[in-house]
């Protein structure tokens, strides 16, 4: 056996080597890992994948397709980090290990089309063009028909595509100007980070976010040259594109003098708040020019009282709403109470907790493609806990979870809506305005 991998594994050296070597193999990470919960295999939990990284680092194993698949067997949900007594972030090691795998094998072609061509190239504003072209070319249905699982000999439907709305022909950024003035006196300038999913598929979230901010009196700036946050590339191990995205977004937002940057995509938020500082070794104020907030964090912390005043009055019938904690919002950004505070001020809703609200929904990007059975059974557990609340609406703050959960609900033909917290909030404000 050689130790020659060490030189060619730069990303798992240094910081990553420390993470790997510090794992004391206590196994505590098994207790929270949603993947381990499903199949009780050591390949599922963080300890196993760290041991694998260690074996690669010390030349006891050579990288191969099997190992790549084990590294892919992770939702990057960060639950292991929360259980780890040593305070490790194993998910980051796996993302880096994937990067090594990407460099070595390049990416499977389908992933490479979706991530590199569609999300990687150019600006977000031109993206829907590409996407609708892609739509026409049936690229997405190609992805839908799942070449990869087929290659793996499986043919189950990817859950998060089941209930995906059709992609509108114009993107959010095409429809909205770069600078939006509030009707009332300006109380500050905020930048809005749109994110791919909300620029194309879930435009309702971007619209609601911008409208709520405008109602509060913010001038909202949506830099046209912003790009994807880069988190999908980070998760797929494409660090080169990630770096390009950081540079692009930095220049897009730094052009303006902003009081805050708001994002309503959980994944994008953890990209900006968690991944960027890790890559750049500096905080968001330096990289992007202002502090980054998730929309629910910003609204609940700074404007709860203002929003209360905007709520509709004399609501008689309340609908039950429950909340799913996206891993990327709860664990990676520590946003837990804020969305609940917002839900609790909405007169049209009665908030009920679901059991295990912080448990992953099983989306995890490429994970759904590679490990469809596990992904689906994680989602089915989520569906059951939602059903048990009797809620008619599930609020959440992440496009990935929304696709996955609405897919899971749809499969059982349940009449339960899946909505971003800020969309519910905007509906309430509109109701209040109409009164």
């Amino acid at each position, binding site marked *: 056996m050689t130790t020659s991998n060490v030189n060619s594994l730069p990303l798992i050296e240094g910081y990553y080597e*420390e993470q790997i*070597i*510090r794992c*004391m*193999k*206590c*196994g*505590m990470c*098994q*207790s929270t890992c949603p993947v381990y919960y499903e199949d*009780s295999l*050591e*390949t599922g939990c963080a300890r*196993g994948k760290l*041991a*694998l990284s*260690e*074996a690669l680092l*010390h030349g*006891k*194993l050579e990288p*191969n397709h*099997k*190992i790549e698949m*084990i590294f892919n067997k992770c939702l990057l949900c960060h639950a292991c980090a929360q*259980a780890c*007594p*040593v*305070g490790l972030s194993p998910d980051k090691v796996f993302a880096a290990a994937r990067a090594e795998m990407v460099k070595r094998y390049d990416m499977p072609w389908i992933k490479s089309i979706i991530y590199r061509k569609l999300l990687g190239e150019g600006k977000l504003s031109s993206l829907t063009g590409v996407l609708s072209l892609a739509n026409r070319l049936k690229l997405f249905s190609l992805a839908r028909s799942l070449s990869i699982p087929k290659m793996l000999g499986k043919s189950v439907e990817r859950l998060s595509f089941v209930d995906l709305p059709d992609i509108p022909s114009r993107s959010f950024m095409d429809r909205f100007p770069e600078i939006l003035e509030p009707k009332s006196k300006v109380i500050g300038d905020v930048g809005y980070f749109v994110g791919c999913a909300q620029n194309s598929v879930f435009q309702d979230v971007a619209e609601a976010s911008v409208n709520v901010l405008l109602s509060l009196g913010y001038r909202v700036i949506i830099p046209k040259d912003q790009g994807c946050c880069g988190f999908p590339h980070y998760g797929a191990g494409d660090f080169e594109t990630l770096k390009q995205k950081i540079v692009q977004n930095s220049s897009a937002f730094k052009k303006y003098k902003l009081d805050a940057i708001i994002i309503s995509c959980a994944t994008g938020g953890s990209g900006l708040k968690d991944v960027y500082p890790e890559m750049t070794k500096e905080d968001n104020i330096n990289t992007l020019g202002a502090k980054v907030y998730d929309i629910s964090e910003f609204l609940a912390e700074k404007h709860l009282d203002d929003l209360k005043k905007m709520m509709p009055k004399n609501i008689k019938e309340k609908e039950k709403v429950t909340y799913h904690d996206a891993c990327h919002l709860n664990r990676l950004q520590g946003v837990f109470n804020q969305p609940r505070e917002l839900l609790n001020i909405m007169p049209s809703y009665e908030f009920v907790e679901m059991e295990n609200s912080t448990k992953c929904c099983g989306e995890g990007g490429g994970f759904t493609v590679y490990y469809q059975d596990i992904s689906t059974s994680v989602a089915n557990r989520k569906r059951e806990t939602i059903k048990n609340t009797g809620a008619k609406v599930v609020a959440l703050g992440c496009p990935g979870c929304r696709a996955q959960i609405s897919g899971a609900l749809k499969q059982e033909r349940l009449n339960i809506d899946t909505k971003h917290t800020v969309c519910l909030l905007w509906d309430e404000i509109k109701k209040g305005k109409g009164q």
Partner: protein
Amino acid sequence: MLDKIKINELIDIVGSSNVLTDPSELMLYSYDATQLHRVPDLVVIVHSAEDIAKIIKFARKNNINVYPRGSGTNLSGGSIPADGGIVIELNRLNRIIDIDIENRIAIVEPGVIAATLDSEVAKKGLFYPPDPGSLAVATIGGCVSEGAGGLRALKYGTTKDYIIGLEVVLPNGDIITTGNFSSLRSSPGFDLTHLFVGSEGTLGIITKIAVKLIYPAKTKKTLLVLYDSVVKAGTAVAKIIENKIIPSTMEFLDKITINAVEDFKKIGLPRDIEALLLIEVDGEPEDVETSAKILEKVCMDVGARSISVAKNDTERMELMEARRAALPVLARLKPTTILEDATVPRSKVPQMLEKIHDVQDRYNLMIGSFGHAGDGNLHPTILVDRRNKEEMKKVDMAIKEIFNYCIELGGTLTGEHGIGIVKAPFMEKEFKKEGLSFFRDIKKALDPDNKLNPNKIVCTKEVHLDYI
């Protein structure tokens, strides 16, 4: 080592998806929480006692070693396939077969996670006291095989005290039942149940477990006591017991650990204290009140610097935090954490700690100690960087000194973490030649070919284990 034809025989027994052969997967069943490892030749995932019996017979016929494995969280190398062979993965045998409220007995399969049993019996108003720190991940089978203890052992005992019956696959492939599955009366003859409890998978593979349950205490009271000297803390422990009070928990933290807790958790402990005791009493409300009063007085009389008493559940959890954080905060100080398990008579705790401090100074090592002071079970935790070969040599010598002294004081090698492979070389010191030879005889009687978890507890061959 295992050719295709033989592997196919195993596949016929458990199905192909339950036989792992890929080198990367085998790597993941090579270690336990000692971090040492040896890659097995094969991993077989089993779903029934019958599967196990067949595999054992197969292994015997083909002269292959077999190693049972739960969650692989033991701290003594017990589940490592140290001499090559097949790892039998037991965590799919994970049904809770019955919780009999009337007779207060639960019957479970070995792969049930300890925390799951805990919460399931709690739902029925009952209580299963053993609570190792690894509760959330360790299997019941692993706990029985290690005789696992925990924070409540002082008053409630360890796993050993709750096992009333077992189903075991013997090294010859026979499946037997020991003890009694339906009543607390023990069965006649040898106490076979307790031959297997704590046997670390060397005498048989446990496939069903009957545990006795009790009713939970009505109330709890928790005290945090700070001391300027280790001797005073040790004296307090002895005096408390002399006063006929048996706390459910009596935990100890030394200065290094206390400072590490402060570094990472900032809960406001003074950095200059030498020791702290975390004491919990439970039971009927009036008894708990009286005991707490006496405890406070005894602790003060011995010269405590201060005592905090939790007024409610939230405060109780806050006080507990100091103890819960002990291992995690120490583990953050250095890359490698070596957790030891020296146990001495309660009265000798101060002497043992003095020795540990002396060893630490002489070898220039960082050792934080905490543990179950009430039963003299200390966890000196050596903090090093395992990449530093020189330092690791010193660790070996330090551990030897600590163990030898521990036995001199009338103590034992391990309070709860088992002997496994890492402590097997010290067995003769504790049990003398005759004692050890009796261990060997028992092992030989049950497993004449030495195929079931060989080299654990009783060392038969020198094997070298390393980190990955």
